[in-house]
């Protein structure tokens, strides 16, 4: 196990449920929520919406956010995991407003969460985004084999890095 960084950390997932690979963020968080986490590390499903997450970040003052979601983007390989440190390239206000309008009317989106919270300057200073490229976004609960393997790898890496133990 590597050394755990200092400061409060939130490990979060975002996504719709029951959409197979597209629900990987929620499913990974469900797995992590069943574990015991050391002090200073919290695990939460942030799919309740960017506006509520905004207030949560404003009040909680996390030092670090690790946010996980399945997002289909052109040119990527299904089942691959893409990890990056979030850098906000400011969007025009009209586009941010459009994202707010989506958020308050119930659209669940990792991009909206990050961009809205970044616009309002509440994202934790160290935000790491872990995206899985989905293969199958149909109705259902099971992952495609490649995304299932990727989800297992992410869980193992997070447990190793942040020191969770299984709840007895």
């Amino acid at each position: 196990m590597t050394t755990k960084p200092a400061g409060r950390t939130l490990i979060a997932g975002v996504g719709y449920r029951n959409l197979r690979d597209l629900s990987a963020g929620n499913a990974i968080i469900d797995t992590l929520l069943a574990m015991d986490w050391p002090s200073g590390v919290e695990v939460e499903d942030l799919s309740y919406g960017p506006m509520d997450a905004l207030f949560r970040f404003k009040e909680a003052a996390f030092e670090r956010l690790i946010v996980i979601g399945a997002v289909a983007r052109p040119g990527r390989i299904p089942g691959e995991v893409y990890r990056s440190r979030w850098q906000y390239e400011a969007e025009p206000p009209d586009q941010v407003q459009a994202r707010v309008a989506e958020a308050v009317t119930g659209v669940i989106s990792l991009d909206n969460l990050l961009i809205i919270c970044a616009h309002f300057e509440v994202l934790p200073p160290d935000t790491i985004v872990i995206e899985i490229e989905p293969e199958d976004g149909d109705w259902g609960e099971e992952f495609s084999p490649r995304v299932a393997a990727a989800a297992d790898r992410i869980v193992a890496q997070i447990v190793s890095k942040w020191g969770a133990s299984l709840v007895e």
Partner: protein
Amino acid sequence: MCFKNLPVEFDASGKPYLKEGVANPYGYEPRKDLTHDQITDLLTRNGHIKEVNFDPVTRVAGALAFHSVVDLEQRSVVETNAVATLFRGYEVILKGRDPRDAIFISSRACGVCGGVHSTCSALALEMAFGIQPPPLGVILRNLLLAAEFLYDHPLHLFLLAGPDYSQSAVEATNPELWDRALRTPAEHTGVHGYATIAEIMTDLNPLSGNLYLEALGMTRIAREAYVILGGKYPHPQTIVPGGISTTVTLTTFNEYYSRLLKLVDYSKKVALLWDDVFDFFLRANPEYARVGARRKNLIDTGLWDSPDSYDATYKNCNEWGKARWATPGVIIDGELRTTNLQDINIGLEEFVEHSFYEGWNGERFPTDESGAPLSPHHPWNKETKPRPEGINWKEKYTWDTAPRWDRMSMETGPYSRMWNTALAQEIPDNDFIEATGHSLKLRLPKAAKPALDLEWHIPQDWNALERNRARAYAMAYTALVAMNDWLRGLAMLRDGETKVSTEYEMPRRGTQIGVGFWGAGRGYLTHHAVIDNGKIANYQILTPSTWMASPRDPFGNPGPYEEAVMNTPLLETFDKPEDFKGIDILRAIRSFDPCMPCTTHVYAGDRTIVREVNTCACGVE
């Protein structure tokens, strides 16, 4: 006379019956419109007539699009079509399922109104199952759905429709109005604190304006109020037939109350600052009374039941309907036609001549349980048979259906329930809300801010500004309904009356039917359920936006969005077609709080302007 177009009359005791001697009582001949070639010819011969397309980008679930033909010389809209571009499909998903699943599945029809759908579904099921909630269960539903609306109203007023009246929008589209706003004092500065209209408009600016940011915070307080009692939002798990499955205590009740008081105070300011903005527009240019104007034809089921009256039966629905805090009703050309839920129900029909569906025979329920006639196009008789195909503006162009009451196009919103309640004067006696026959008097109690009396008047002209003004007063109305229910609930708790749900056995044999009459923040909502041998045989959801985004009906009548846009003058300041932004059309559409997330592309000449009309997905089938 309740019905003028349907062949339904009433006997001396008020019981509806089918008029005798009519060979095919619900039959009709679809009207023929202009052909596509005729429209094309019109466009070709007139250079100043342009097609204006509001074309969707489907990055979100559910979409509304608009196709219009505008005359930029006459500054008018020549033709328009509202288009629901996605198939919702909940009716298909629910078929064959355990009826209790409907509460949780139908909730997903909307990301804003999930609790409303759950509740409406629970009402339909308890009618079908023959059960009713205990009094505190009724009160809790009322409190939950008041909290939901107190989330929804500021969302509409400040985050969705509000930016159309902000400094950034007004200065860009009507600079002369902005100049005037800078010089115009705000009448109610003593309540909201703004000295001029320009100051209000500046704080309405999206993302940066104080009113916009404050509204974000207030929506959170309303959500907290819901969650304290209901456990989770937007898709609660605590709504069940026969009540709610949660435990309430004096502590949770008081936590709700602390949020409610903040919303009571907020509603004082909301009503009067929007009064100032809308009065400013109408004084600056009386033509704004034509933006989004249409006939005063409104429908609403009412909501917020009385624990003394609600028994969940269809037989007594007229009585328990009238005992609601919001009176059910139908208004035709400004006149109250009925307040009976049964009349509302038997007058319903849905048509699909301009929608991507096949027709159906609809012979299963020729009457309701009392023997009153039902159309083959009534939701209990309807079948959802999707048939996707290409858009043809004169034939099929939308996934929405054309719901009609007495074969007329109706609109609905918080204003329709306020309008019905004001006219009917059936509201139960209480300390906070008074219906005068022409207005609603709203007595907001002292909280952190002093007590304030408001009065919402039934408007003379019906248009986009008045829709939004009524929405602003709906904040206060809703908060006062919650005050009434909170006081009643507190008294029940003090008396040890803590039961919130009723045990029941779900019928596993035979046929049961039910209808949930409730209301969303945006207006009318019904769920019609038919259950055969313990499984859903038919489930039909009729939402506010199903009514209002509706296409033309077979009689040639446009839907409310279409009609309102057709009546809208183009008051925007522009010299060249490429400068045209379409703000008046967008104000007209947004005043209805349309319920589909949509991206609107306005094509004027060779220029494309991208605007968005955002909401949720419950307006489509």
